[in-house]
């Protein structure tokens, strides 16, 4: 019997003598929360080494972008970090506006901040509640999900879609915010703080949660910087780097908020930092909403910059006015002149510094567009973070890093 098996099953050299077990975690495993593979070498339940394989959903975004006019690239950015796609969209518009030297009105900036902070909350609440799910606490996840739903309804009121939003245009928004959007926003700002406190109290002093997360997946500030960490993951390690403060965009300098930092850089601190960031986002939301409401007269109706060469005219004007028709045609065909130049613009994405490096040679499409995708950059630290850890901690670490497969693979 054993001889037959020996003839038919060809085991790799040395696999019987080997003292460790190889385990494929992923590519499709519920605990990976996305299509990514980890080849783990296990000694019992301890991880000896981990090797990440990525690229399962690579869609060649940088190549695709080289054939698209600027306004068509927004839909590509949606599909990177799909938990907070409005931030990606805004980041892209801001990059284009920097290249094209378009100045946006204050009201547009504040409306953008409302959208970006809502997106940040929806990103963080998913990440934190998934950390909870991976430690065995499903309740929080289901509870906060209804508030993500409310955020998605606000997106729907503004742009008509929920996940891949394609929200906003170069120069502003495609239409003004409706009253229903503001009503829903008020509801959110009214109800969510209490929910957040409740959600936090489910975990913060929960013995099981604390023991599962404290000390696991920890990284020092030096290593985090060396690995190019940004966003909540870096701040949990104690470095107060936030793009919103360091290089303000979209009038973030008008807002008063603090940047929470952790000290240990472990899963527990990442959880706390994200929770506190949601609170700060709520503060920004309230200030932004007040500022938007304070506009009067004609200013209160402004929702885009006056840049006819890049911003599509209203449909009714296209049918009735010659000039609008010409601009419409030129924009759609990508015939408007784009200056030669190179820009780097970054925004504080849900999981770190999301950067756009755009080189334009004056043609209708970018000559080169490179995305700085934060989770691609910090995921390489995963093998260092999990070395010597238990298998179950590795799962927690993966969700606590907030990996989004779409962004990872671009």
């Amino acid at each position, binding site marked *: 019997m054993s001889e037959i098996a020996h003839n038919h099953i060809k085991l790799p050299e040395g696999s019987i003598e080997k003292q460790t077990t190889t385990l494929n975690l992923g590519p499709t495993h519920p605990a990976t929360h996305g299509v990514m593979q980890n080849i783990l070498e296990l000694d019992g339940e301890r991880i000896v080494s981990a090797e990440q394989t*990525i*690229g399962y959903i*690579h869609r*060649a975004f*940088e*190549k*695709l972008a*080289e*054939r698209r006019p600027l306004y068509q690239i927004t839909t590509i950015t949606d599909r990177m970090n799909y938990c907070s796609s409005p931030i990606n969209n805004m980041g892209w518009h801001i990059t284009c506006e*920097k*290249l094209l030297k378009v100045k946006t009105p204050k009201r547009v900036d504040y409306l953008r901040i409302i959208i970006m902070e809502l997106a940040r909350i929806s990103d963080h609440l998913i990440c934190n509640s998934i950390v909870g799910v991976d430690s065995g606490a499903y309740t929080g996840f289901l509870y906060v999900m209804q508030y993500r739903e409310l955020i998605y309804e606000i997106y729907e009121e503004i742009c008509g879609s929920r996940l891949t939003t394609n929200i906003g245009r170069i120069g502003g928004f495609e239409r003004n915010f409706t009253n229903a959007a503001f009503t829903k926003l008020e509801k959110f700002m009214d109800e969510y703080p209490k929910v957040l406190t409740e959600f936090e109290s489910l975990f913060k002093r929960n013995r099981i949660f604390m023991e599962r997360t404290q000390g696991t997946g920890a990284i020092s500030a030096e*290593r985090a*910087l*060396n*690995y*190019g960490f940004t966003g909540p993951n870096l701040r949990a390690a104690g*470095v107060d*780097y936030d793009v919103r403060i*360091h*290089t303000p965009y979209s009038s973030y300098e008008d807002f008063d908020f603090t940047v929470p930092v952790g000290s240990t850089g472990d899963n527990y601190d990442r959880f706390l930092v994200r929770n506190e960031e949601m609170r700060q986002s709520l503060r920004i939301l309230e200030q932004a909403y007040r500022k938007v409401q304070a506009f009067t007269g004609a200013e209160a109706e402004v929702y885009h910059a006056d840049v006819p060469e890049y911003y599509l005219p209203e449909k009714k004007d296209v049918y009735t006015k010659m000039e609008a028709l010409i601009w419409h045609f030129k924009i759609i065909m990508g015939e408007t002149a784009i200056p030669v*130049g*190179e*820009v*780097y613009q*970054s925004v504080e994405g849900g999981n770190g*510094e999301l*950067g756009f*490096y755009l*080189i334009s040679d004056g043609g209708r499409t970018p*000559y*080169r567009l*490179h995305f*700085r995708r934060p989770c*691609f*950059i910090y*995921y*390489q*630290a995963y093998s*260092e973070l999990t070395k010597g850890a238990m298998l179950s901690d590795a799962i927690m670490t993966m969700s606590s890093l907030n990996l989004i497969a779409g962004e990872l*693979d*671009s």
Partner: protein
Amino acid sequence: MVLTNETIEQRLKAKFGDLLTNFETPYGMLTFEAPKDYNLKLLQFLYDDTELRFQFLTTLCAVHYPDQPGRELAIVYHLHNLQDNVRIRFKVFTDINTPDIFTATNLYSTANWMERETYDFYGVNFVGHPNLKRILNVDEMDYFPMRKEFPLEDGTRIDKDDAMFGRG
């Protein structure tokens, strides 16, 4: 003291002399070129210098210029001094037949995957990289897809059998 682009430029010129060229500041970011053998020395100097302190590698990518013989590939580094909050960008040009560049992995752990990605899409050979293999594309791929000689499929082609794509 505020670290301005002029200060950085002077300091770099004092150290490297005429090796660094084409200083400009498109959209406010100091940009310059370095010879390909000097990329690592430059990165090390920028990292160690007590005044400059460019110790954060924001991103690294390549650009293909097929019309520049001998300088077809540009490797672009974006660095950030987090204390003084200044960003700079420098480029290293190489010809496409011997695209050998020193790796920055000993200085920055983050360069590991960035360089693998650059190798994967442009075929830049990072000398000394511990694990230079493809990262997003399949291992069997035998070309570098982001180079300009590989155009995207013509969106208007009609020789495809639509039935195969559920559109017939």
